[in-house]
């Protein structure tokens, strides 16, 4: 099998490290295992974990936008 690309391609980018944040954050139960403070009647446990969804979306969107041009995307 021969390599036909003149320059080796890669998905590497420093931005990728950001993806660790939304992977680790929702697994740290001590951050959110509490009733107070409440938001719209939701205990912290529920509203903060729902808020992590937004963190996940923001991170993946940012990484996608920042790596789009470079990696041949």
């Amino acid at each position, binding site marked *: *099998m021969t*390599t*036909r*690309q003149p320059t*080796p*391609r*890669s*998905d590497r980018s420093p931005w*990728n490290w950001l*993806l*660790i*944040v*939304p*992977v680790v954050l*929702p*697994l*740290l*139960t*001590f951050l959110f*295992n*509490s*009733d107070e403070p*409440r938001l*719209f*009647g*939701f*205990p912290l*446990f*529920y509203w903060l*974990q*729902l808020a*992590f*969804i937004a*963190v*996940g*979306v923001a*991170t*993946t*969107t940012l*990484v*996608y936008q920042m790596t*789009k041009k470079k*990696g*041949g*995307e």
Partner: protein
Amino acid sequence: MQWTEIIIFGILFLGVSGMGFVAARWRRPKDMEHLDEWGLGGRNFGGWITWFLIGGDLYTAYTFVAVPALVFGAGAMGFFAVPYTVVIYPMLFLVLIRLWSVSHKHGFVTPADFVRARFGSPTLALIIAITGIVATMPYIALQLVGIEAVLKSMGVSGHWPILVAFAILAAYTYQSGLRAPALIAFVKDVLIYIVILAAVIYIPMELGGWGVVFSDAAAKFDATANPGDGILLNANNQLQYATLALGSALALFLYPHSVTGVLASKNRGVIKRNMSALPAYSLLLGLIALLGFMAISAEITPIGTDMNTVVPNLFDKMFPDWFTGVAFAAIGIGALVPAAIMSIAASNLFTRNIYKEYLKKDASPAQEAKISKIVSLVVKVGAVLCILLLDPSFSIDLQLIGGVIILQTLPSVGIGLYTRWFHRGALITGWVAGMGMGLWMLYNISAPATATKAAKPHWAGSNFPLEKFGLDTKMTIYVGLVAVLVNVVVTVLATFVLKAMKTTDGADATARDDYFVDEGDKDVDTTDPEKEPVSST
């Protein structure tokens, strides 16, 4: 019998089934008699279709019924579905595009195809394929459990409606392949979004606000003798919560049906964009989970001991009949989409990695498509038998076991995308070790008797008490994660041993650059002489 509900349910269900048959003509394939067309929808789905397809694939009817049922019964623990579906996308962001590229380049249809080429081992591929099929079967059966819960709430009893529903499903999957669930997924999601948004706005208002809903739930859990429930986690189940979320996320991507959805998309950008867009479903799932608390607050009781009827009963009590009919149709149709994709994925595994590998090496693409279509029928019959012959609670245990065993393909399929260092013999050894560990742990989980259920000495869930390892603690951990750790450690050690002994290893048919190709690259589709060229553009 709730006639209004049944009529609305029936009309929507049949209308959608009609779409399933018409789907064969949607995005007209040049030649339907090819596995790329029947089994992967032409490998040409764009961002929107992929979003609906993978969404419909991962967030199943069973999820919509069982997650709130778990929250209803145990409280905070059931909310693990939210972190589970948050961590999965950033985790897979870089992994899936590699899988897509290498599969696009070599024409892989299943995860086992990849393993075969990467590690040069048809035996390892066979193990991966069988693991996938065995893990998927109870998952399909569980979709039936979702439909059955809805039917029970409408006052329809007996197994015949399930048989009819699955006969229809089997017929249009046979006819249209992956195009059917892709098209139906639109309708399913529109219905689900309408129903859930109505539910989370209207029901709490009726009950006196979210604050009341949560305090009613807290009061219920305080009154029970079970120390493991409550609207918050306790010191002993936090580890279980985090490991279950992480382990389930890893397992979900390894299921063959998720891979099918990913490979059907047309380029890397579609997958990356979907990793940002799919969490919209996670939000939906979080809100659905809270239906469990609303059911407590509304003083809903399940039918018999079937906890899965909690959500249907909640809708039945709170909504007008016609809207309940819509809600039930959403759940019923929600079962059809993943059931179709799962059976397609399982039949592709059989065709590619068992039939073509061992039974008929020179099978043409048309023969492959034909075999897959027939096997998809067999798989559904198997799933129906699971439901008819087994106690429903046992099918849920089977699904739990399924998650643990599919995780054992992680070193070959997941880590294998990044490194070729593992020896093929070591991967098989690791798989055996992980499987043994997982099944041993699951077997040794017992549950005490409760007010509604008898004591279970074995196979009672996936939360393994660490004290059985001799640790002085009451903490529990998710079986799957421990089993896969054992698997990885054994694979690493065995690789050292086999390499030291200079045992022959398989050849790697993939090259470094294969993991980066994208749609439109010139060097695609021409390399691997063993595989027929891919027909898509």
